[in-house]
């Protein structure tokens, strides 16, 4: 595993007024790697992701990205309700001036990647929650980004749909090998999807543990495999001890 770094953060601190969202965070995301950031809600994970994507600038420290082609997937699908699936997925190409025929062909290919080819003419209101999320992933992939930043993409889905989409996302990543960074507050999801899980402390976010997950393909059966469970237990313990430690610090000061 001698990947070069796709993103590296060095001693990154971001303050919003008096609030310190992240403090002295250093991390690297390898090219073609799948990294998950987990932590309690409100800990500053999303700030870290926005810094990685260049949506925000650090107060101090530095952020390096080896190339600029990236795409975001948000917690909500953010589809245009008046457009068909095909035209929604084609939007990034449309905005960068790709011709109609070419963008439709490429959008259709991206839709095939998320297995929605038979829904191409439907509008978002005719899609289920899970399908809308898949559409939003297809839209992120349509411009062939080398980096995919996912901000709790499946948090609003029900358990079954979520497992299904997690499986598809991991499979997609194994095939396409883009670099992926995932924010989630679900430990099992982080361990299932990512190669490396970074555990954040409560705000201000610091990386308190790095856990490598077992390599190899995932299926819905591996959700409960003992190797993944061990990694998940490790991650949960790291997160819990960071929370109790922070609580003790608060009580002491």
């Amino acid at each position, binding site marked *: 595993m001698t990947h070069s770094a796709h993103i590296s953060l060095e001693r990154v601190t971001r303050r919003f007024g008096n609030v310190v969202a992240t403090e002295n965070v250093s991390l690297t995301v390898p090219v073609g790697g799948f990294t998950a950031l987990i932590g309690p809600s409100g800990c500053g994970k999303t700030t870290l992701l926005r810094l990685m994507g260049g*949506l925000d600038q650090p107060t101090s420290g530095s952020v390096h990205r080896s190339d600029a082609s990236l795409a*975001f997937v*948000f917690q*909500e699908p*953010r589809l*245009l*309700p*008046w457009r068909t699936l095909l035209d929604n997925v084609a*939007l*990034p190409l*449309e*905005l*960068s001036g790709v011709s109609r025929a070419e963008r439709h062909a490429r959008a259709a290919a991206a839709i095939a990647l998320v297995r929605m080819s038979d829904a191409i003419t439907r*509008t*978002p*209101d005719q899609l289920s929650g899970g399908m809308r999320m898949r559409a939003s992933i297809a839209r992120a992939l349509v411009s062939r980004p080398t980096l995919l930043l996912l901000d709790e993409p499946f948090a609003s889905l029900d358990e079954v749909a979520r497992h299904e989409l997690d499986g598809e996302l991991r499979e997609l990543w194994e095939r396409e090998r883009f670099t992926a960074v995932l924010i989630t507050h679900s430990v099992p999801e982080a361990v299932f999807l990512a190669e490396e899980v970074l555990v954040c402390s409560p705000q201000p976010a610091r990386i308190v543990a790095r856990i490598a997950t077992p390599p190899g393909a995932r299926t819905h059966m591996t959700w409960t495999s003992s190797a993944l469970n061990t990694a998940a237990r490790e991650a949960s313990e790291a997160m819990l001890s960071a929370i109790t430690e922070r609580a003790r610090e608060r009580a002491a000061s």
Partner: protein
Amino acid sequence: MTQVLRIFSPCITLAVVVLLWWAGKVLFEVQDFVLPSPWSVAQAFLVDPKPFMIGCLETGSCAAIGFLLAAVFGILAASIFSLSRRVEQSVYPIALLLQMVPLIAIAPLLVVWFGYGRGAIVASAVIVSIFPIIANTLAGLRAADPKLVELFTLLRAGRIAVWWKLSIPSAVPSMLTGLRIAAGLATIGTIAGEFIAGFAGNNAPLGILVMTGLRNFQTDRVFVAVLLAALVGFALFALVSVSSSLLLRRWCK
């Protein structure tokens, strides 16, 4: 069943109102020139419907033309306002102030500017119906989902692209609300314009038929003209409502 009731119930209400009207007239022995009976109103129409039909056509076409002009210029004005904050800040307050000027007060001026006849009448319809179109369209243009705006920003969309592909489609529902309100108002503006600028004669519009009926103490003819004016207004409103709800079906989630 509920569908039948929906059409049937207002018919019953109407029948009750007509019956009360009739009963009141007979009971209190109200004179004909104060309150004609429903029957004499119907007769006034049926004996010679031609001038009334011409009046409907005249008033209806002026209201429709006024409405269409208001729609075109109202949407255009709102678009310009939404593209330039500075233009909006300098023009919109003046437009609001102008809206407060009573139509009856400026109607004579319209005669000075456009002469007697259709020009001034249509202008009066435009003045009354353009403001709700501007206000609603502008509100809609400003109400684009901020999360979708962020998506467009991330995709590096230019201002014109955001406006055309996001703001305008987002504004469609409230734009249609404005158009529906304007459709009702256009007829009111037309009748008011006719009072001041209408021609009597073979092509007399409904507003003039109201006036001549009053002068000749033919209150039954006044009733016919007023009821027909309401009907013309309702027809325009219904036409716009039905076509807008057909269009809205694509926009509603």
